[in-house]
């Protein structure tokens, strides 16, 4: 070889029957993640995931910024689900500083959290369409997502990186006629989501590509520590909003969807069912919300916690997201750890791809609700 190969790159080796292939960091799907796959003909024999191409060092940088200036940083791992990734951080900081949030702010947080779930899940469905080569499955969710983003734009002022949750409440109140506009758009979204059933989930091509591929049994799902839609598609009924309710979810009625088979088809159906549930939650929250009141508690400058630690978790689009904060009487946190759903589900990949055909790999890989930026933090 006359050209020098940079370190860490894999060459294609032919070793009798087993061939090592590189599903490289740049691929026509989405996100940068490499899979080093060993194939025997058409069947995958072993798979070694290689994440870290978007590792930006969030946890190290959080130690140099105080509790308020950390907010724009910590929302960047998943920018279109930014409220849900800030939620456990804000709950934890409020417990460390001993702040009590007003009632109206709790309901506004619940509405923002559910709208973010729309924004994330519709984009995930759109990219699933790119993986499977179904271009309508890219265009329809990407277009319908703009409705949810319009509502978030009115609430927070930004399309994606909202920076809306602060310790002490939310940054600003809802605009004047928000309730009518919201109910109208949510009703239209619900009608559109029900139309997805014909085009996507009853489509014989999609069914034949995803049914019975990557089957994860119930015991394995518990043993591997998976979370979110991967867990609920394998028959385990666990959702942090019902099992350990936080903020306004203590008064809201949430129904979790559980499917039994544990294959890629079920894993791609659960987020869609969850979105239909989100429509109900938003309408309930708008009804039960106190009609007036403040939404923010003012903090002293440079707030510090004591010698304490806290672990909080919240249900995001990918699963349960936990934040562990250690504080040592300084304005900056001593250690901040994000325990994200994508990283916890990554362990399923080498387990599920053994024995699969190479053509089924995109369907299985993206059905694990994996967002590469979040897993690398």
């Amino acid at each position, binding site marked *: 070889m006359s050209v020098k190969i940079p370190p860490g790159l894999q060459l294609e080796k032919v070793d009798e029957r087993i061939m090592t292939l590189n599903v490289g960091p740049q691929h026509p799907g989405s996100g940068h993640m490499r899979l080093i796959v060993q194939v025997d003909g058409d069947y995958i024999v072993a798979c070694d995931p290689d*994440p*870290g191409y978007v*590792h930006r060092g969030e946890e190290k940088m959080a130690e140099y910024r105080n509790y308020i200036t950390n907010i724009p940083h910590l929302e960047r791992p998943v920018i279109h689900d930014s409220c849900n990734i800030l939620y456990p951080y804000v709950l934890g900081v409020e417990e460390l500083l001993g702040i009590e949030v007003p009632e109206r702010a709790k309901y506004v947080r619940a509405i923002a959290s559910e709208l973010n779930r729309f924004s994330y899940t519709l984009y995930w469905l759109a990219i699933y369409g790119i993986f499977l080569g179904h271009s309508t499955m890219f265009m329809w969710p990407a277009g319908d997502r703009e409705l949810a983003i319009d509502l978030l734009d009115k609430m927070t002022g930004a399309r994606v990186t909202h920076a809306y949750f602060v310790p002490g409440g939310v940054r600003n109140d809802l605009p004047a006629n928000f309730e009518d506009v919201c109910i109208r758009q949510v009703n239209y979204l619900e009608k559109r989501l029900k139309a997805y059933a014909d085009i996507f989930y009853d489509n014989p091509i999609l069914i034949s590509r995803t049914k019975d591929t990557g089957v994860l049994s119930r015991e394995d799902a518990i*043993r591997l520590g998976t979370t979110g839609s991967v867990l609920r598609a394998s028959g*385990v009924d*666990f959702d942090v909003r019902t099992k350990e309710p936080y903020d306004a979810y203590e008064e809201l009625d949430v129904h979790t969807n559980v499917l039994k088979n544990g294959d890629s088809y079920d894993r791609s159906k659960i987020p869609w069912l969850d979105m239909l549930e989100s429509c109900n939650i938003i309408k309930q929250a708008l009804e039960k919300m106190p009609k007036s009141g403040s939404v923010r508690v003012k903090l002293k400058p440079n707030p510090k916690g004591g010698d304490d630690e806290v*672990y909080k978790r919240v249900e995001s689009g990918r699963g349960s997201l936990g934040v562990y904060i250690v504080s040592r009487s300084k304005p900056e946190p001593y250690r901040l*750890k994000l325990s994200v759903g994508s990283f916890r589900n990554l362990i399923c990949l080498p387990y599920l791809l053994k024995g699969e055909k190479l053509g089924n790999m995109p369907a299985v890989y993206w059905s694990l609700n994996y967002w590469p930026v979040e897993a690398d933090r």
Partner: protein
Amino acid sequence: MSSEESKTKPVTQTQTAPAKKEPELPKFEKDLSDKIVTKFGADTEISFVKPNRVRINVKKEKIKDVATFIRDELNFDHAESVTGVDFPKEKEIEVVYHLGSYTDPKLNKQILSLATRVPREDTPNPGKDSTKLQSLREIFYSVEFHERECFEMLGVYFDGHPDNRRLLLPEDWADIPPMRKDFATKGR
């Protein structure tokens, strides 16, 4: 058990002496921590007992036995995350396992933090110095990638883990593990 219905209010306990002004500890969580301490005695100590959160500090030699007891008797079945915290002044690194349960409905809200400390050296040589800990991979399979990340970020070597390799850092990383407190970030 009826006491775990109350989510944030502590339940009164009849075991503390009435003259002392001690805060009342939640009963269900105190039962969990007492079971561990009565079995393992001096090797463990209770760090705190709060509603839905219990923390136990263990000596590093006994961590595998305590983890097996927690899995078999107390029904915790997976690990949510593994964190390493660096304390350069005390020359120790603390590794905290957060354990949760999906199968037992009484334990759905509880998170048990299992913490242990390993010695820390000033010039780290990851894999070959005294910062070693026994891996909990045979007991909780879900810690596999978390322990690999803890190894590369802090230099804690896990004995018994089949694959102690880099996960997130670049392949040609030649500096000290980045989450240590003496790793300097540029510009700060």
